[in-house]
């Protein structure tokens, strides 16, 4: 089907006025979207623009607060992803939903195996897998163990699995994040092939170059609202960036900071994880921002600097001395603090209360000969709860029952109480309400004014523009671009990240 014909075709799936709030924050505000037969439709937007929320509702993983989803003009309500799949909508997430220990054929048949009584008809299962893979042009052996395949092939298996039902809409969330260039090209061929079969593809990606290589239409979301939809041929990459960022306040609303003195943290040629020879310097009183697309390496830097992961090469000098902590405890002793992005998984102790969670990193300071001084511990917790304005019912409140913003404040206070010299902050305001976000930003300003070194790792371009004195953009584990004021605008940061 030609793109022109596709544009005239009636919508397979229509979203009308879709809205959704999480904990009072409106993640999606009345979004309309049409998916037509035989089109590749790209969905673009910054982090937090509402893409994931939209996919979740389309795929049946979440229910809209208001608005409707229509399939073939008929309003539907999805109680579960299985219900969405039954109506022909399949979602392929970044994290594949396959079992590594099973073979390709077993994965394809999982939950719907050809049976003879209680037994699986293995030959029929393998044959049907082979048929499906051949039909899609995937060169994968049905008997291969899934875990032994490269990631691109595993993703093809997931696509084949999604298409074993009568799927009309295929949603892919950041499908190329973990793929090599060649694997990504292969995926694009597959998607173009699916387009000719009349399947509607909703393609969610940060990689705008891919979007323009692939998509027929582009829809941009910003702050939960739809900015617009355009045929890919009638818009340009820089226009899309502009739509994503919006009427950004491209003036920095704070005076420029001057870093005082020489760099205190010097990273040279650092490799490990996805880092491939990173160079970086941070001076006292300076906020250095670090960003990039998923997998660019900025996520791993903090683990390496903090002694949670070993580098394979390179050198770090902190405070004039070589810095190679064997474990986080040593990094903490040297005056380094690290707040991870995954608050629940890597930050908080869910079984404990505000008191323990806030003071956890300071037990040694609060103890006399190994005995924890309860009064001092409580005093510290109270003082820092007050300073960070943590809203809790008391120090014994279980930490997970706090709001996300207050959880984050507890984590920041845990380290602030130690008064470290270098703060490594990962996504410090992700998923946090506006008021708390501003409070945290002011606190980070305060750190810089007090002469601390701050390494801010964030995928939030607005936050970067607000805070960073230098913005380092990574790509493929190396520094791709460095922006300095006044060039650190939201627009420039987004453009640097997506264009490379």
């Amino acid at each position, binding site marked *: 089907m030609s793109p022109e014909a596709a544009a005239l075709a009636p919508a397979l799936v229509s979203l009308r006025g879709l809205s959704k709030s999480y904990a009072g924050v409106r993640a999606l505000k009345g979004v309309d979207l049409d998916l037509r037969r035989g089109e590749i439709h790209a969905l673009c937007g910054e982090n937090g623009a509402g893409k994931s929320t939209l996919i979740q509702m389309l795929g049946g993983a979440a229910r809209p607060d208001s608005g409707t989803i229509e399939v073939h003009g008929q309003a539907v309500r999805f109680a579960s992803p299985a219900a969405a799949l039954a109506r022909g909508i399949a979602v392929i997430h970044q994290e594949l939903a396959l079992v590594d220990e099973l073979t390709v054929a077993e994965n394809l048949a999982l939950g719907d195996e050809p049976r003879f009584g209680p037994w699986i008809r293995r030959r029929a299962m393998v044959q049907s897998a082979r048929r499906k893979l051949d039909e899609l042009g995937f060169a994968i052996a049905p008997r291969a163990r899934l875990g032994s395949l490269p990631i691109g092939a595993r993703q093809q298996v997931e696509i084949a699995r999604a298409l074993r039902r009568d799927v009309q809409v295929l949603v892919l969330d950041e499908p190329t994040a973990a793929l090599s260039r060649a694997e990504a090209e292969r995926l694009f061929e597959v998607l173009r092939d699916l387009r000719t079969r009349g399947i509607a593809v909703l393609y969610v990606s940060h990689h705008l170059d891919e979007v323009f290589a692939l998509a027929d239409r582009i829809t941009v979301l910003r702050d939960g609202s739809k900015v617009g939809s355009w045929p890919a041929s009638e818009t340009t990459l820089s226009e899309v960036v502009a739509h994503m960022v919006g009427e950004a306040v491209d003036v920095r609303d704070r005076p420029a900071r001057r870093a005082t003195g020489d760099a205190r943290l010097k990273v040279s040629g650092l490799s490990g994880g996805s880092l491939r020879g990173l160079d970086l310097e941070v001076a006292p009183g300076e906020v250095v921002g670090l960003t990039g697309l998923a997998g660019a390496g900025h996520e791993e830097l903090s683990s390496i600097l903090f002694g949670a992961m070993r580098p394979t090469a390179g050198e770090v000098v902190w405070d004039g001395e070589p810095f190679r902590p064997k474990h986080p405890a040593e990094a903490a002793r040297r005056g380094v603090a690290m707040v991870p992005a995954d608050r629940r998984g890597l930050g908080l*102790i869910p079984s404990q209360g505000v008191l323990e969670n806030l003071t956890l990193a300071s037990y040694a300071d609060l103890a006399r000969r190994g005995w924890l001084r309860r009064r001092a511990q409580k005093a510290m917790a109270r003082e820092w709860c007050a300073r960070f304005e943590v809203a809790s019912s008391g120090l014994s409140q279980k930490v997970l029952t706090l709001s996300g913003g207050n959880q984050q404040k507890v984590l920041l206070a845990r380290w602030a109480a130690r008064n470290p010299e270098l703060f490594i902050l990962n996504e410090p305001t992700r998923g946090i309400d506006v008021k708390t976000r501003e409070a945290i930003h002011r606190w980070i300003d305060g750190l810089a004014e007090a002469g601390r070194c701050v390494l801010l790792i964030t995928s939030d371009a607005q936050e970067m523009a607000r805070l960073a004195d230098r913005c380092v953009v990574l790509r493929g584990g190396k520094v791709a671009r460095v922006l300095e004021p006044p060039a650190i605008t939201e627009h420039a940061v987004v453009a640097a990240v997506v264009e490379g």
Partner: protein
Amino acid sequence: MPRPLRTVVGRLPQILLIVGALALMLRTERFFTPGTLSSILTQASIVGVLAIGQAFVLIGGGFDLSQGAMLALVAATVGRLSQEGWNPALCLAAALTAGLLLGSINGFFVSVVRTNPFVTTLSTLLIFRGAAFIMLEGRPIPGVKVFQAVDSGFKLGDAFVSYRGVVFAVAALLTWIVLRRTVFGQHVYALGGNAEAARLAGVRTVRLRTWTFALSGLASGLAAILLLGWLRVAKSDTATGYELDSIAACVVGGVSLQGGRGSVLGAAAGCLLLQALRTQITMSGFPEEYRTFVTGLVILTFAAADALARRGERA
């Protein structure tokens, strides 16, 4: 869920513990006498000491199946040493050191090699038990008298209180304070609550986890001393299954198998309750055969209550 109900459900294990204890006490007149209570304390003491060690491991997010085997191997070692003519003080030191060492082996594998705690201690259960067999060449050593001094007690009013019971009670109190009040203890709770978060907060998790297992070994050594003092026989099949009793005591006492929650006093109370239940069954004239059955039922009830309590917490 309305708030009062949530509070009740959230404390379900503790409420069950208290109600269970009261029910047992009031069930028979003879039960609620100093003599009976003191004898329950005595009978619970050996598994009770193991339960204390188990509580450290469980709260730290681990699991120790090798306690009974460690106890047997320590007992066998002491049996041999006493044959060599070691004096009681040296034997005591040897028993505790041996326990600590055996526990450290578990700790080393779980935290440094990172083998699964279940598999690790299942293997060491067999290894330690087998080592006890080899050491004793299959023959028990009777008449081990080095610890016989422990097998006595004193009069307190009408009741006779055994030193074994005292050791258990004092150990429970001391370790309870250690766990609640020291940096080490609070780190154990953090470790069991979220090991990776604790590590990233600067807790030396590898060292700490090794210590929890080492303490379980130390508890096994102490239990071996109490058992030897009482039975005066070193046998390789001694204390078989005690590790399950100690885990059961912890579960009944509200120590979470997922780690991060519970207390030593809870574990001790659980141990006493299970022992009281057994005594009760015997005293009320039920056949012995019911004991195992009822014990299992009680443990499952407490595990279910704990699961329900947690569900309330998340809501």
